């Protein structure tokens, strides 16, 4: 399919334009202050996740009941939790879990929504109609209820949680991709390639999809923020990872709500971790949107 022996003029021009689009976008992004802040926050978040075993002063499971609920001190920077474990170390390890769950749930959501949206947008007609009604049905159910239902159905576990969060995002991705595919269908360069006899699949893969991806990328970045919040929300409703020892921010925060009065810092730190990483993804997402779509920039 993709043997590009003799690229047509239109396609070559388009590819160049596309490369230019990305380069311009990157340049714009680098000039966007808030987006840079977001990028830094995310970088810190990712580095923390990777280096957690090396920088954490304690193991995520280390501690004893005798040391429980100690306030922050030089020994335990963020105090100790209900089981006497070092909260700071658990926050660091928690970055691994949140990053993993967030990224994978969004990848799953984008894949599911992408297939749905691409099929609908590319084929049109009756298939489009039916698929979009399915999307309507999914959107009509409040996301958190859908997620609760999926976890109730498939049981507790990180993969199930990822799937649940992915399923709440998938219809949104499907709609976005389909919408921008439809918008791209009639633009000049697509018409141009069609007029010179490019195949339907080729047009889709080489022209329409790449140009529709920008919206999806922005949506996916923003969805990372909501994914982290949604995972925490499931934890809040008692549907976190089955091994209670897992250092997951949402579950850590939820467990601590019972000790709000004795140890407010146990809410503060995981709460901050969630909010800060969500801010990072939100800033970057906004920045991406603005740089990828210059018309939005002001």
């Amino acid at each position: 399919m993709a043997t590009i022996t003799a690229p047509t003029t239109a396609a070559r021009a388009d590819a160049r334009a596309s490369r230019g689009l990305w380069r311009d976008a990157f340049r714009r992004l680098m000039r966007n202050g808030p987006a840079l802040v977001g990028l830094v926050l995310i970088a810190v978040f990712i580095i923390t996740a990777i280096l957690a075993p090396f920088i954490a002063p304690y193991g995520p499971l280390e501690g004893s009941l005798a040391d429980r609920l100690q306030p922050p001190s030089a020994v335990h920077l963020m105090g100790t939790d209900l089981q006497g474990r070092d909260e700071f170390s658990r926050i660091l390890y928690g970055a691994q879990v949140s990053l993993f769950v967030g990224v994978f749930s969004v990848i799953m959501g984008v894949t599911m929504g992408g297939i749905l949206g691409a099929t609908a947008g590319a084929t049109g007609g009756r298939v489009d109609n039916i698929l979009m009604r399915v999307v309507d049905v999914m959107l009509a159910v409040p996301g958190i209820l859908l997620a609760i239902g999926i976890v109730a159905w498939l049981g507790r576990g990180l993969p199930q949680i990822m799937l649940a969060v992915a399923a709440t995002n998938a219809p949104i991705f499907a709609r976005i991709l389909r919408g921008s595919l439809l918008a791209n269908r009639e633009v000049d360069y697509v018409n141009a390639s069609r007029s010179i006899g490019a195949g339907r699949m080729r047009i889709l893969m080489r022209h329409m999809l790449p140009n529709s991806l920008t919206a999806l990328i922005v949506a996916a970045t923003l969805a990372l923020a909501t994914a982290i919040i949604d995972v925490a929300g499931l934890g809040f409703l008692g549907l976190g990872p089955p091994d209670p020892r897992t250092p997951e921010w949402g579950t850590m925060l939820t467990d601590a709500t019972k000790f709000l009065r004795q140890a407010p810092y146990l809410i503060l730190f995981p709460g901050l971790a969630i909010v800060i990483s969500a801010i990072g993804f939100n800033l970057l997402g906004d920045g991406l949107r603005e740089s990828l779509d210059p018309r939005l920039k002001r």
Partner: protein
Amino acid sequence: MAKYIVRRLLGAIPVLFGLSIILFAFIHMLPGDPAAALLGQHATPELTAQIREQLGLDKPLWQQYINYLGQLLQGDLGKSIINNRPIIDEFLIRFPGTIELTIGALIFAVGLGIPLGRFAARHVQGAGDGMVTVISLLGVSIPIFVLGLTLQYIFAVQLRILPTSGRLDPRIQLEYQTNFVLIDTLLAGDLGAFVDGIRHLILPAIALGSIPLAIITRITRASVLDVTNEDYVRTARAKGLTERRVDGRHIMRNAWLPVVTVIGLQVGGLLAGAVITETIFSWNGVGRWTVEAIQDHDYFVVQSTILIFAVIFLIVNLIVDIGYAFLNPRIRYA
């Protein structure tokens, strides 16, 4: 216009029908058993089987679905498995709670979001704009339960200036008619009770309204900026119209469009957020009921409440689309 509405309403029917089938299938795939949930620690396999039979759960699935659909078409939502009360009775008590909460949140979000957005647009790139941007960023980044618990802790537990939970002080004797606390207190002519109802609404409405607030603020800011640069606004200014008049007649009228759309889109999010907000504030609404029902495998309650959520969602979207067309006559009902 009428034709358009009818067509949209007809279009909703297959969606609802599909949803009812998916819901039904899904809910019966859930592991566990409502009969076991009903019996709790008293459950034995014999008792469980007996109760499954009484509830009709031993019949084939398709037969159960047909029965359910038949009931539904007759307007009968069925009964709760757990407490055996007709779902419609409980619904009529709980639904007004969710509506009151959602409207409260919307009023908070719209009432604050639009002025904030306009303010930010007028002072674009200034310190005020930065503040507003930070507020709206926090709004979408703080989970409802973090915000809700924090508000509850600060204002109800520590400062004790607002009640922690519930919809009305239980000491107030109120004759319930509509089950909308704010309406019933007014019907009873009890102004004190009305104020108490408002006080109970404040914290949950803020917690629930924070995300829409952030989004509405952003959209208002963006669309005001959009319109401000349009030719007709410049023309209006050039004609020497006062800023106020430009703002009211030219900018806002056109900036409303995307704002209205977003408000409509937020309703789905609000209903979802209500699930968590109602849990935090012991708010007697449909969201909390649904979560409990999922936990209890109360099949009929889950089916009914989610269907109703879906109907609301579809209706609101329809209203938004109609409002959209109304605000912008250029849009044809294609």
